[in-house]
């Protein structure tokens, strides 16, 4: 990679990633409180309520069909009791990160399509996790955040990312290959550094870092889950992570997850249905008028 002044290098990335804005003071404090363990609900809920936008979003998500509660959760305290600390942590993390990188349509990198792909991958990972008996909240969060490095590049290194997108277009290649050729590293490295900066849990960090190369971290199912979920989601044409290609699936991932093609086939309609419920995470943004929605989604 060139040492051209101003060009993004791994050294500059290391330095500038430290300047990334925190998720929000309240989000970080809430996550720290939860991670300390033995956190008392009243203290936790008081902290969340200090950020009105976060509090209302947490309540909205907690009440959504996606979490499938039979009765209305009217308070943050109720959300904590009904959902449990683990799910609450997942909601706070996702709400915090989506709030940091709001969806916007258009441009060379379409964040609306990006978030649709991210949510689709999260839902796919959740459905597969249910199948293999892995924690569904962790799978959803990891899927949602697996490509967060692309957002960091788009938001904080726009000129460098512009060159990446131009190379993607000229070579008609995967975004990660364009990143490697243009920057010398890809979004998994950027995302892993951002995840470390934001103190995201180790499993989420591992999924962000290794989802294109699951062999590097095959000791936990989460990396294999996100690797497979990303590919299935691309195949179902749910949103777009920034290119229209499908990376090679690692057969060892399927073996480790003990999943075969017939089981994956059975999961596809479940994924599409649950994805419809999960889209509320980006429901505040503009939806198109009838007839202008993206690719054909035919359903039975």
């Amino acid at each position, binding site marked *: 990679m060139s040492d051209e002044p101003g060009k993004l290098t791994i050294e500059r990335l290391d330095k500038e990633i430290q300047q990334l804005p925190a998720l929000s003071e309240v989000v970080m404090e809430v996550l720290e409180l939860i991670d300390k363990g033995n956190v008392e609900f009243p203290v936790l809920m008081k902290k969340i309520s200090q950020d009105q936008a976060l509090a209302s979003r947490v309540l909205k998500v907690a009440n959504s069909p996606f979490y*499938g509660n039979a009765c209305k959760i009217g308070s943050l305290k109720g959300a904590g009791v009904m959902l449990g600390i683990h799910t609450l942590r997942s909601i706070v993390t996702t709400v915090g990160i989506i709030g940091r990188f709001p969806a916007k349509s258009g441009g060379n990198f379409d964040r609306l399509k990006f978030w649709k792909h991210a949510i689709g991958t999260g839902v796919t990972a959740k459905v597969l996790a249910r199948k293999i008996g892995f924690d569904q909240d962790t799978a959803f969060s990891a899927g949602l955040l697996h490509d967060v490095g692309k957002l960091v590049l788009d938001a904080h290194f726009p000129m460098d990312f512009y060159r990446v997108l131009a190379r993607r277009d000229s070579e008609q290649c995967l975004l990660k290959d364009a990143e490697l050729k243009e920057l010398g590293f890809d979004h998994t490295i950027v995302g892993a550094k951002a995840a470390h900066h934001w103190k995201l849990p180790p499993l989420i960090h591992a999924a962000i870092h290794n989802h294109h190369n699951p062999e590097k971290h095959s000791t936990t199912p989460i990396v294999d889950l996100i690797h497979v979920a990303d590919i299935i989601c691309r195949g179902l*044409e749910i949103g777009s992570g920034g290119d229209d*290609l*499908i990376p090679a699936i690692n057969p060892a991932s399927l073996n480790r997850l003990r999943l075969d093609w017939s089981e994956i086939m059975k999961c596809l309609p479940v994924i599409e*249905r649950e994805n*419809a419920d999960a889209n509320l995470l980006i429901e505040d943004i503009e939806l198109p008028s*009838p*007839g202008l929605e993206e690719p054909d989604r*035919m359903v*039975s």
Partner: protein
Amino acid sequence: MKKIEQIKIENILPGMILGYDVKDIKGSKLMTEHTKLTENDITKLKRRDIMSVHIVRRIKLSPEQQLAHENDIRNRISKRFRQHNNVPDMEKLRKLLIEYRTGQCSDE
């Protein structure tokens, strides 16, 4: 053939058909999929603060159009796999996705 679109509630019109169940914030079902919406239904959804719903758009296709549509899906999916010609696992995945997506088209 039918196609499902997520539509903001202010753009919903009587006669549109729900693609998925609509649930309220309690998680309980407000309306079931396949419901043909009336003016009253839409008012009810608005009162319940439903922001968007999934609507079915039915498209009548001739056999030729149906075939062309299925070919379009095949081509679109195959294009996504263009880096993996003759890789066995990718070929299995490509066929599975095509079977699933074209199966949806002919399901009516």
